[in-house]
């Protein structure tokens, strides 16, 4: 069967759990920004957890189904309509051939995940169906979906309707959102005052927020420890000799607006990084809308690993509910 794309939404892409292993060549792992939501959507419709789904940001697509299927939508909150009739999020329901799925306006979070039983069945590239538009890799012909596309879906049996993820297991950011950070990398470049201000200030998500990275503004400009710039680094005090960036790392070009790199990160560059958002909180960034207030919270490695274990336990509970 295929999904006929009537309207694509704003920037809807095919994503799975990504293609780790090529970052040393500048090809990011990609994959769902909110991985818990993608896993849950797949589990709801009986797919393997890493099956490819549609990730839609801020605005949902409009899709006509060419065959019967079970579907589920997770992640942000957006009214779900099947031939105009409301359906619940985080809950499986069946669609008949010829029916059309559409969405109302976003009411919470930023990204939704649409899982279809059988999973999206485009040709994988480097082991993944995730779309990396800059490299024209994966997805549907290497790009986001467009009106008129017919997206192939694998064959699968329908699942029971009304399978649902309990509300306590639906994870999203609070308001203000709190993102936990491990300091390190080039943290020592900041003055003590600026280091403290980074955590004390309230930041807001800037309009420049996408799969590559999220930019934040509203905090105080940062000051750097004075030094003679090393050879090859560049003249600005925020410059370093180009090095690798990590997922979640926080760079502050010119000391003004922090950028947190996400799944489609550039793999390296010449800006200092002050640390990184912990792995457990990467999903939350994917659900931040522009203008959301954000506090960065300093944690240690132990706390980061505990948060990682807590998130894994949450996914295990979802799995237990649905498998």
């Amino acid at each position: 069967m295929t999904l006929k794309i009537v309207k694509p939404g704003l920037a809807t892409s095919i994503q799975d759990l990504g293609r780790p292993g090529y970052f040393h060549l500048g090809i990011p792992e990609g994959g769902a920004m909110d991985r818990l939501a993608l896993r849950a959507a797949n589990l709801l419709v009986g797919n393997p957890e890493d099956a490819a789904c549609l990730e839609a940001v801020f605005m949902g697509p409009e899709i006509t189904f060419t065959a019967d299927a079970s579907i589920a939508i997770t992640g942000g909150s957006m009214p779900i309509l099947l031939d105009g009739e409301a359906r619940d999020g985080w809950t499986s329901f069946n669609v008949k051939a010829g029916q059309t799925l559409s969405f109302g306006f976003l009411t919470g979070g930023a990204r939704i995940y649409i899982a279809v039983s059988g999973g999206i069945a485009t040709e994988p590239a480097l082991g993944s169906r995730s779309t990396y538009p800059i490299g024209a890799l994966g997805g549907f012909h290497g790009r986001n979906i467009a009106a008129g596309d017919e997206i192939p879906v694998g064959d699968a049996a329908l699942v029971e309707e009304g399978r649902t993820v309990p509300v306590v297991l639906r994870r999203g950011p609070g308001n203000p959102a709190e993102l936990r950070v491990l300091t390190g990398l080039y943290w020592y470049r900041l003055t003590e005052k600026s280091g403290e201000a980074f955590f004390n200030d309230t930041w807001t998500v800037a309009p420049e927020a996408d799969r590559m990275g999220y930019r934040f503004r509203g905090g105080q400009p940062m000051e750097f420890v004075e030094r003679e710039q090393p050879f090859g680094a560049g003249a600005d005090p925020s410059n370093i000799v180009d090095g690798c960036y990590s997922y979640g790392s926080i760079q502050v070009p010119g000391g003004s607006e922090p950028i947190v790199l996400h799944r489609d990160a550039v793999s390296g560059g010449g800006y200092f990084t002050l640390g990184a958002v912990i792995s457990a909180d990467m999903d939350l960034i994917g659900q931040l809308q522009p203008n959301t207030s954000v506090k960065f919270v300093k944690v240690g490695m132990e706390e980061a690993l505990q948060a990682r274990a807590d998130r894994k336990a949450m996914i295990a509970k979802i799995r237990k509910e649905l498998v």
Partner: protein
Amino acid sequence: MKTRYSYGGDEHIYVEVDEEMSLDAFFISLSMSNAVREANIPGVTEICPANASFEVRFDPDVIAPADMMARIKELEHKAETAEKRLSTRIIEIPVFFQDPWTHETLMRFRERHQDPSGSDLDYAARINGYDSVEAFIEAFHSQPWFVSMVGFVAGLPFLYQLVDRDKQLEVPKYLRPRTDTPKQTVGYGGCFSCIYSVRGAGGYQMFGITPMPIFDPEQKVSYLKDFMVFFKPGDIVKWKPIDQAEYDRITAAVEEGTYTPRIAEVDFDLDAFNADMTGFNAKLMEALNDA
């Protein structure tokens, strides 16, 4: 040189061999990252070498961060005593300097440049003390370059020229990055040259363009059939200036699938290079005569 280790969140370890760029720092970071690869440490998912640093990504559910850190630190000594020698290849990359496409682009983004009155090459030649653009281009292409890092975006090489530090060319990046750069632009920022593998945003000064694709996700280009990315760290590059006629001829040959880049196998030995840079480079470039 003082090696510095840091966690990057709970999944990465970042190792900076030196704050400043040098071939010694590059060689140590490359040998250390190779040593990490050869050690086959369970839980390691990515090893990314950079100019004077490298990064290891790992799964903390498989190996505790502190254990991962200890394993990497153990390898520092091994890398320091390793021979700074590399079996690699030299590749001739044709470049059409002052081409119409990068010229159109640099004019479009002139207000983001340090010197809106001239071209990027005019500016680069002047601030590096060259009398003419031609003399600057000569310095740029007459000595070979080392690929010290691949990344930023898919398959983009950073290159460092194989000359003494006092002969290194240095230029700042654009004041504000461009939102567009033609695919295969040869750029320059800091002490690094690069080839933009795909069209997109960029902050490096633009000097010219190569007709030779270096990234092809569809793998239709004849020499990218085995893998979509052309460059790897340690490759050596010799720029070859070409005119528009040659540019057009190569572009057509690439499309027909008949273009083969000139490549020769070479050994690079850092001590031998440091002892006689000009002589060593001459030998490297001679290898291309048989390619």
